[in-house]
């Protein structure tokens, strides 16, 4: 148990500190209220961003999986001879190779210009290759 002098000191200091809290001036009280609102608003924004942060990896993973599936199963194109949307008839490894080559061509502006220069030649080469795979190249 505390001695009376200690108890008196504790009580008096508590009373003084509490009075100084109660007597805080209005500008300080107002600033504290503003600070509280600002903190709660910022925390709200932060929590929304955190929600997005949780979704971002899932969205990225889904996109990567979708891209992987698309690359694995190869391009779906129009078979001019059959006139319908079909999968190309080459084996998967060759298809992937073709897809990557196409990607290179699309990515390279020079190659696109080359293709545009002589579209008829490439059309003929494609038809000739389809007719007799051993005769071209």
């Amino acid at each position, binding site marked *: 148990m505390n001695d009376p002098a200690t108890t008196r*000191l504790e009580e008096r*200091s*508590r009373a003084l500190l509490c009075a*100084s*809290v*109660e007597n*805080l001036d209005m500008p300080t009280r107002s600033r*504290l209220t503003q600070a*509280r609102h600002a903190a709660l608003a910022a*925390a709200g924004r932060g929590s929304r961003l955190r929600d997005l942060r949780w979704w971002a990896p899932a969205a990225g993973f889904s996109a990567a999986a979708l891209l992987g599936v698309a690359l694995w199963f190869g391009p779906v194109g129009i078979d001019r001879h059959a006139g319908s949307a079909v999968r190309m008839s080459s084996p998967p490894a060759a298809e992937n190779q073709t897809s990557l080559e196409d990607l290179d061509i699309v990515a390279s502006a020079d190659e696109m210009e080359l293709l545009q220069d002589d579209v008829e030649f490439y059309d003929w080469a494609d038809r000739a290759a389809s007719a007799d795979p051993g005769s071209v190249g």
Partner: protein
Amino acid sequence: MPRFATLDAAWMVWDGPAPAREDAALDQTRELEKFLAEIERRAFRMAQVALRDPDDAMDVVQDAMLKLARNYAAKPSAEWRPLFYRILENGIRDLQRRRSVRKRVMAWLPGPKEDPDNEASDPLDSVADGGPAVPDLMMQSEAMEQLEISLRQLPARQREAFLLRNLEGLDVAETAAAMGCSQGSVKTHYSRAVHALRAQLGEVW
């Protein structure tokens, strides 16, 4: 027993008012705001006693509010108080450390040296509008000033223990959680703080 009795029960559950996530978040925000409103003035006074500068005290309190709301709002509300004061005390300590570094750097630079920590505080700063009569107020203000001076002379951990127990009214366990130390250490710090204050204020009080 009807075949779909369980299904009916399930429908009743399904149709009942399920607590929406937004409502729960709103309730939590309201509760947190209530908590912050309740403690903000005492927290400000604690920071002001430690830092002397009201602007610095305001910054530290706001920062503590923000960190609590951002990182610990999901914790049970019973844990908010010790967590908040732990964040606040860490903020106060960081600021004091920065000041001390700044002071050391400024000591090397030429020019007039002004040390804001040694400025005598104006007793009229703590005088508020209204309230007690002027003589009582002056005596109260003078006593408060003496108490503040004595509190500032205490080591930081003793001052923390004294203010958390005496002003904020935390028990030993909560104070230990807020200070990040054992309950035995809290008792030791508090006891030393009281003895030091008695030695300084005993004659005046």
